[in-house]
């Protein structure tokens, strides 16, 4: 009897194993002939890919993330797109983790149209005419506030620590934004922190936590809350300022005396990618002036290419407060470069958000 039951179990197991072995390969196989692109939500608009989609209709699948650290976790968990879109401060870490492979700049026909300041970023150099990231976009992080509710707001990041507005502010849930600002306010160098500096940043973040209604990367809900008046101020990127101004909401994108944050992001090749040729075509298409022009007008972000700026009218650029040369911007702002203590800051931010 015992052996009968045992053989039954064994048979069942064998059947299951067979079925599993048949099912698994088909699951693991990625889709060929279609570029898979992992990017920030908001960067998936078809008008950014006009040239590419004309040449390869429908040949891209896009997945989005809220923040490039989320993207890193997805990659770590086994997601393998062809192309991803992190920001410059993450490149060294992604490269160290063996996530990305070099991109041949000779195959990027608009490479020389990229502003030298972005082309020559130290962390993207992979040697031998290759790079780890092809820059596409840059922009600013600052406080977007309601000019009618805060008519004489002090032009300082300290607004996000003002107890009078407790529960009516939000900040960005990302290591390269909120902790960097906390470090600036605490008066320490955000990109290289001693253990004592880390404590100062932690204290600042703890001081801020009870005042925040939300830590989020969901900019749509932040924009809605600012529009309704539930929030008086929030840390955002340029795009939110453009969106709300278009809706006629009285808002201003602050120029804090400690400096706005300026970031630059771009395309990376994910190790083990299948559609390299499509990926080069995709990057080339995004570096066309028309694509960059859409980025400038839709999001208020800067394009990495000078040709896109040349295609834009000076009035529009003035309205968006974008200088035609990013070097002018960077003289006044804090560039978000690689952060040596990114891991520690990430853990700290998560813990403090939870109340620790």
């Amino acid at each position, binding site marked *: *009897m015992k052996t*009968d039951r045992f053989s*039954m179990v064994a*048979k*069942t*197991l064998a*059947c*299951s194993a067979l*079925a*599993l072995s048949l099912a698994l390969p088909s699951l693991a196989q990625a889709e060929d002939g279609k570029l898979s692109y992992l990017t920030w939500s908001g960067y998936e608009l078809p008008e950014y890919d006009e040239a590419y989609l004309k040449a390869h209709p429908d040949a891209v699948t896009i997945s989005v993330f809220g*923040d490039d*650290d*989320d993207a*890193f*976790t997805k990659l*770590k968990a086994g997601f393998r797109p062809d192309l991803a879109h992190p920001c410059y401060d993450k490149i060294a870490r992604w490269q160290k*983790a063996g996530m990305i492979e070099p991109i041949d700049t000779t195959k990027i026909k608009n490479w020389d149209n990229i502003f030298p300041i972005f082309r020559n970023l130290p962390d993207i150099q992979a040697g031998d005419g290759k790079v780890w990231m092809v820059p596409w976009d840059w922009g600013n992080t600052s406080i977007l506030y309601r000019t009618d509710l805060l008519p004489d707001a002090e032009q300082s990041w300290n607004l996000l620590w003002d107890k009078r507005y407790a*529960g*009516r502010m939000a900040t960005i849930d990302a*290591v390269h934004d909120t902790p960097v600002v906390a470090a600036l306010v605490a008066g320490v160098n955000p990109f290289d922190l001693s253990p004592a500096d880390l404590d100062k940043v932690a204290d600042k973040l703890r001081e801020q*936590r*009870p005042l*925040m*209604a*939300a*830590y989020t990367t969901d900019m749509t809900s932040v924009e809605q*809350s600012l529009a*309704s*008046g*539930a929030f008086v101020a929030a840390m955002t990127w340029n795009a939110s300022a453009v969106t709300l101004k278009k809706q006629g909401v009285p808002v201003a994108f602050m120029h804090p005396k400690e400096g706005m944050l300026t970031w630059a992001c771009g395309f990376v090749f994910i190790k083990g990618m299948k559609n390299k040729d499509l990926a080069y075509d995709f990057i080339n298409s995004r570096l066309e002036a028309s694509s960059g022009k859409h980025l400038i007008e839709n999001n208020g972000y800067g394009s990495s290419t000078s040709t896109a700026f040349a295609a834009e009218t000076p009035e529009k650029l003035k309205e968006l407060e974008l200088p035609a040369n990013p070097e002018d911007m960077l003289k006044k702002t804090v560039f978000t470069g690689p952060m040596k203590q990114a*891991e520690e800051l*990430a*853990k700290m*931010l*998560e*813990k403090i*958000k*939870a*109340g*620790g």
Partner: protein
Amino acid sequence: MIFTKPDKTSGAGSVLFRCGIFLPGTVLGLGLVVFSLSLVTFFAFRHNDGSLLGRGWTGSNFLTILTDPLYVRIALRSVILAGLATLATVIAAYPVAYCIAVHGGRYRKLVLFLVTLPFWTSYLLRVFAWKIVLAYNGVLNSFLVGTGLLHEPSLAFLNTPAAVVVTLAHAYAPFAILPIYTALESMPGSLLEAAADLGARPLTAFRRIVLPYSFPGVLTAIMVVFIPTVGDYVTPALVGGPQSVMIGSLIEMQFGRANDWPFGAALSVAVMLVIAGLIALLRKTEAGKESRL
């Protein structure tokens, strides 16, 4: 064994059939339950060094959970919020179930169908609906300002622990109504008549007959609502604000941004143990009640 072995009387078709019928259970049981639980437990005892599987063996993850007051506090908060949500759900669900079972008459089926109707929309949508109700310029605030009860919209509804409790209680209501209804439905009407004959007032009859009779249903409702709400992640994230971070969000953070899978696994195991303990307590109450009946 009572059944006769079909192997001997039938051929390959039967073997195939049996493989087919056992397959889903085996795959689910071994793959999704045994394997996943083992993996989580395995991770819980690893050092985090950023690599996929961690390094070495350690109990330090559990030590941190026990020694850092943050984790105990958040676990306690999760249990309290889920407990309140469960309480609210059961209290609201009981009269509904009672009405359907006792006074439903020929509309019983229709009303039960209506109770499950909200389930036709996604859980996420129902949470968002509450967001719209509770928001600064939302339905509730507009009503209160419109009727002059408030001078200006209140921020006190959204992004609070209360919002989490209300949203959870609404979302899980059918889970409580159905088991309580099932328990009450099987109650013979003659019991109440007998109670009345013996001079019991309706309230006494309810307290001494109906309530004990429906107790197993209430207990099931408590478990079915409490277990998923303790670990709920999306509701606190959407309507709770930073003051109502629950253990589910904390676990998500470890697997996400904080990039510490072993610690996240340890937290998951700890939560499972806490819930198992609470359920064991409930079971004991149930057994106690039944032996008294």
